[in-house]
């Protein structure tokens, strides 16, 4: 059964702004989670609480922002010990699922004068297991190391920043060192070097004839030189392989950025299309307007004349005969005699007027047919004008819409600097050429190592050949040691593969449990140099494409995998895990912490604002919530404690 270690209590005396402080993480027995939240405003001392735990365990700072575990103000106001000094103390109480209780107490003595605290360089560490105390510091340190190995410290304690940058180059180097150390690979490497020294010692024991002494000495010197050169080349090869991996990763970054900037090219094309569309629409508008002007002009001309024509027509349309054919003198006589030139009857008012028109404005009279044609023309022109207006009202919004689209596209393009594109292409070329050079270098080093190995064998052979007969036993021993060296190399390779497979499968297991986007990561790979690669379903490396929240899930999955691979089940404590996360991911991360806490204890520290944003969820999931405040004497106190089942 897996034994899980949990933090029960932390007690702080005079540590930074904590004068006499105790925080209790005991939880309701029926609660299947072990999830604890500490809430405090910025500056109250959340980070110092994590620093205190770290100081108690390892006597060192964690994130580099704690020079001394002291605050002269706190010390000045606290009670002096009998010897006139102040004691800073942190005590941790832990318990495992095997019912073992642990007690770790670290304290340090300080003197305060002129409001300055001076360390008396007296640090004590006491370790206790089930009431048995280990007072000797070195032994106590070993016990702490078994419980929570310092090498894995970066996998127990996090802050928001570290959750985010866990897989950057610096961290990767650290992770590699930790894996090598915890898996025994570094011990094996050192042991192999040690065996080479044993082998050299045996070579020195080979006895030769007096004449050959100098030659043997020369050969030994040569052999040492070859070995040193070979080792340097092997180290360089490893470093070059690391550089190659880092360069390839950078190339991926650049490719990723370039891909993002491909959007820039797309936007550019989109702008061109929009501009063309806008030009077409404007030219359509222009044509419509031109036609409309012509139509309106024509229409107004017709309308202007139409009023007069209408008047004449209306006055004359009842006359069913036409005088149009009569000569003008007949019309004039008829008017002077007041007699109709056709029937001879006396003229009435209508006929007189009609004749008058024929005598003076003959051309102004139109027939019904002409009148109807005129009306039709006006109507047609009016229909045309309305159609043109309709076309215009269709075109104008399209122009407005296109202008808006163009404006948005142009705004987008201004964000993606075109200069950047050039810079990235240049960097891409540089990196590609670097990769080529590094590959060449690796090839050269490989062949150099091969040549040196050959030389090494030849020289060893020459030394053996010089040996007088009674040295044959030593030669056997040398062969024996060399065989052991080969066994160590093979064991190293096996162990390396084993640990890579182990961590990979654990990371995959945790990711499938914790990642909310199920299909985001399809494959996890731990490289030869123990750096992590993750791929999507299209085999694209996507480590640098993950959001802050997704990176946090990956970091914790990796840390949990490291715990499992190392067989360590310590709590995870995270200071401000939501610091680099967008608000909409808060709840998902909190749910993830709660899920992890079903397997191991997890303690997170939040600001009051972060807590407020997800208070309801936190209240429902957390085993305990402690609200910290600073009282009027700048001392940290617990102002409220919410615990499940209480």
């Amino acid at each position, binding site marked *: 059964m897996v034994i899980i270690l949990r933090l029960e209590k932390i007690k702080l005396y005079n540590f930074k702004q904590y004068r006499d402080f105790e925080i209790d993480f005991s939880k309701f027995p029926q609660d299947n989670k072990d999830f604890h939240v500490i809430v405090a405003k910025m500056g109250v001392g959340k980070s110092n609480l994590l620093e205190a735990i770290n100081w108690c365990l390892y006597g060192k700072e964690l994130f580099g922002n704690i020079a001394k575990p002291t605050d002269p103000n706190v010390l000045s106001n606290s009670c002096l010990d009998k010897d006139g000094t102040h004691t800073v103390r942190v005590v941790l109480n832990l318990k495992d699922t095997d019912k073992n209780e642990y007690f770790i107490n670290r304290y340090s003595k300080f003197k305060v004068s002129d409001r300055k605290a001076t360390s008396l360089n007296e640090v004590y560490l006491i370790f206790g297991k089930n009431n048995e105390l280990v007072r000797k510091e070195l032994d106590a340190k070993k016990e702490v190391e*078994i419980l929570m*190995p310092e090498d894995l410290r970066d996998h127990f304690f996090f802050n928001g920043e570290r959750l985010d940058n866990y897989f950057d180059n610096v961290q990767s180097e650290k992770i590699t060192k930790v894996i090598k*150390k*915890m*898996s*025994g690979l*570094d*011990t*094996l490497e*050192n*042991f192999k070097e*040690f065996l080479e*020294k*044993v082998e050299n*010692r*045996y070579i020195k024991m080979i006895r030769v004839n007096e004449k050959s002494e100098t030659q043997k000495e020369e050969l030994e010197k040569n052999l040492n030189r070859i070995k040193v050169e070979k080792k340097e080349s092997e180290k360089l090869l490893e470093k070059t392989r690391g550089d190659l991996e880092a360069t390839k990763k950078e190339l991926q970054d650049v490719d990723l950025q370039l891909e993002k900037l491909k959007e820039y090219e797309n936007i550019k094309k989109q702008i061109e299309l929009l501009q063309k569309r806008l030009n077409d629409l404007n030219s359509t508008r222009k044509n419509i307007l031109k036609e409309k002007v012509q139509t309106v002009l024509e229409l107004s001309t017709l309308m202007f004349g139409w009023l007069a024509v209408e008047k004449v027509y209306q006055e004359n349309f009842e006359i069913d005969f036409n005088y149009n054919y009569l000569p003008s003198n007949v019309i004039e006589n008829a008017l002077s005699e007041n007699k109709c030139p056709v029937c001879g009857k006396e003229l009435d008012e209508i006929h007189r007027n009609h004749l008058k028109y024929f005598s003076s404005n003959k051309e102004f009279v139109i027939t019904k047919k002409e009148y109807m044609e005129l009306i039709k023309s006006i109507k047609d022109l009016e229909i045309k004008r309305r159609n043109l207006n309709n076309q215009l009202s269709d075109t104008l919004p399209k122009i407005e819409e296109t202008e808006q689209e163009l404006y948005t596209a142009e705004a987008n393009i201004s964000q993606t600097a075109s200069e950047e594109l050039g810079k990235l292409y240049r960097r891409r070329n540089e990196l590609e050429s670097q990769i080529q050079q590094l590959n060449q270098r690796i090839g050269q080093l490989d062949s150099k190592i091969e040549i040196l190995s050959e030389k090494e064998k030849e020289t060893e052979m020459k030394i053996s050949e010089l040996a007088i007969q009674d040295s044959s*036993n030593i030669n*056997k*021993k040398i062969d*024996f*040691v060399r*065989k*052991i060296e*080969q*066994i*160590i190399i*093979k*064991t190293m390779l*096996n*162990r390396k593969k*084993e640990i890579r497979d182990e961590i990979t499968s654990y990371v995959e297991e945790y990711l499938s449990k914790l990642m909310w986007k199920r299909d985001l990561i399809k494959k996890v790979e731990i490289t030869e140099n123990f750096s992590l690669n993750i791929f999507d379903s299209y085999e694209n490396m996507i480590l640098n494409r993950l959001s802050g929240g997704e990176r946090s899930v990956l970091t914790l999955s990796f840390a949990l995998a490291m715990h499992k691979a*190392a*067989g*360590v089940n310590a709590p995870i404590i995270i200071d401000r895990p939501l610091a680099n996360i967008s608000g909409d991911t808060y709840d998902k991360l909190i749910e993830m912490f709660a899920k992890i806490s079903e397997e191991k204890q997890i303690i997170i520290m939040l600001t009051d604002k972060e807590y407020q944003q997800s208070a309801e969820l936190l209240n429902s999931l957390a085993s305990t919530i402690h609200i910290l405040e600073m009282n009027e004497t700048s001392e940290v106190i617990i102002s409220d404690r919410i615990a499940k089942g209480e």
Partner: protein
Amino acid sequence: MLKYSTSKLYDSLEKETISEFGEEGKDVFLLIWEIFSEYMNISGNEENKFIDKSINLIDNFFENK
């Protein structure tokens, strides 16, 4: 190195030794493990002394073969 890793290393080293030395491998492995486990606990300045000790152990191993 973590205790947890030691047992894995033990198994792997034993397997490789037997595959290299055959029947004799079990005894060779015990010798390697004796040297290796002691090597893990020595400090840097004890190395030279430990080379002598290892040579003695190997010599004894050859004598007792």
